[in-house]
């Protein structure tokens, strides 16, 4: 479960490679075989068949109450599906999974632990060094000794990100983690997340209400509607070209908005 930290991110050789996760073999493949989830007799997910390749960055958009959080909880193992199977790298799994980490909309830091102990919550051998290294990666090396209450909302989410990555998960789930942040902080978080995803190579699944956020960050956007994947859109624009006003980007956004 505990994979030692790499000392430095591997060099990026070609500009095209930059667009993919540069580290391979870290992310895990995620597959859904006719997965359904119902609460009582209300069906929330009505049959998902889906494969998310290792290392892909997927955004999930959909209306409020459409089952996005439910989907996350199934992947994280907090709930079990009503029927169907979720497979990680081919193996069907139920229950909590150590190689899947979840970033909540509210950072959910333990208020009674200092930042470093929050990041190293899973403990394990030399957790302090590992936690400190991850804090440095998210740019908060000097806040290790602070109580969470002194941090800003964006800083709390960065601590939560460091905490999620400290055990080097193969899948990172992000349930609207930037929803409560202002536009500037959000843009910072986007850059940080993109950089970290490239370096660590995990499979990322991001829930968002913000279609612009989805097409800016993801390789692929899934539109969840009526308990099914209504649209599966590949964002075929290099990340470097995804600046506001790019016509192809606007077209994708329109297409997603229409199908939500």
């Amino acid at each position: 479960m505990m994979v030692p930290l790499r000392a430095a991110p591997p060099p990026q050789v070609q500009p095209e490679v930059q667009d993919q996760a540069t580290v391979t073999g870290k992310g895990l493949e995620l597959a859904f075989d006719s997965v359904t989830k119902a609460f009582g007799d209300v069906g929330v997910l009505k049959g998902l068949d889906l494969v998310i390749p290792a290392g892909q960055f997927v955004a999930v958009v959909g209306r409020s109450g459409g089952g996005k959080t439910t989907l996350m909880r199934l992947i994280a193992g907090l709930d079990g599906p009503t029927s169907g199977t979720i497979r990680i790298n081919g193996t069907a799994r139920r229950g909590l999974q150590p190689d899947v980490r979840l970033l909540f909309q509210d950072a959910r830091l333990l208020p009674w632990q200092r930042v470093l102990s929050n990041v190293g919550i899973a403990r394990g051998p030399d957790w302090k060094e590992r936690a400190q290294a991850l804090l440095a990666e998210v740019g908060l090396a000097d806040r290790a000794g602070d109580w969470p209450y002194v941090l800003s909302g964006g800083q709390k989410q960065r601590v939560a990100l460091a905490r999620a990555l400290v055990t080097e998960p193969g899948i990172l789930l992000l349930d609207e983690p930037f929803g409560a942040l202002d536009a500037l902080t959000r843009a910072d978080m986007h850059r940080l997340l993109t950089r970290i995803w490239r370096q660590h190579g995990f499979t990322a699944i991001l829930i968002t209400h913000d279609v612009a956020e989805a097409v800016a960050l993801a390789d692929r956007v899934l539109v969840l509607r009526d308990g099914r994947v209504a649209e599966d859109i590949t964002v075929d624009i290099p990340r470097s070209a995804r600046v506001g006003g790019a016509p192809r980007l606007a077209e994708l956004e329109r297409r997603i908005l229409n199908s939500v």
Partner: protein
Amino acid sequence: MTRTKALRRGLVPWLLPLALLAVWEVAAKAGWLSARVLPAPSDIAVAFWTTLKDGSLPHHVGISAERAVLGLVIGGGLGFALGLINGALPLAEDILDSSLQMLRNVPHLAIIPMVILWFGIGEEAKVFLVAVGVLFPMYLNTFHGIRSVDRGLVEMGRVYGLGPVALYLRVILPGALPAILVGLRYALGIMWLTLIVAETISASSGIGYMTMNAREFLQTDMVLLGIIVYALLGKLADIASRWLERRALEWNPSFHTGLEAA
């Protein structure tokens, strides 16, 4: 300038009590106040000094403190343990909680005659009463504290791989700590109150006995001394519990105002 201001701030609240004390002293010494009604403050000071020197005051305070602490440890510990168990195990709650809630409605001082029948006026009677008195505030606050721990944090702990023990020690217990400490502060208040009543009614030692004994000999100064000692002990317990709260809840911004001003 600010120093004189601070000095004034520190002194002004003391002016009125000191003036009252002076008036009281003069009135008592001039004979306007009978010594049997209200002895002069200086007489109380003398009583304090003599009982301190002959060792009787420390003796009685020691005995009272011992009863208080013993009762607190037994009753508080039991209440805490019950709160932990019922907070964590729904089955235990089903079995125990409604019975405890029923018992809670009996004012513990109402059982004094029962307790005297059981234990006579021995040490057990006092310790038992204190223990019963502090049990419920500790139980209720611990139980409530554990139940009201942020479910989101518990869920986070599970997703981040904490086992049941780690989850309890690192998430649930610290989350319940503010409520537990409130329970402790309540318990301390009840502890002294119970002890005063119990020692006044039946005892052959302790501060309550000291004052009741003095009453028989019309030593009003000793009675007042006993009252003041009770007040000081109560204050001391309060200061100790506040200090504990500050230390244990350092992470909580609402406990920081005092520390940062210092």
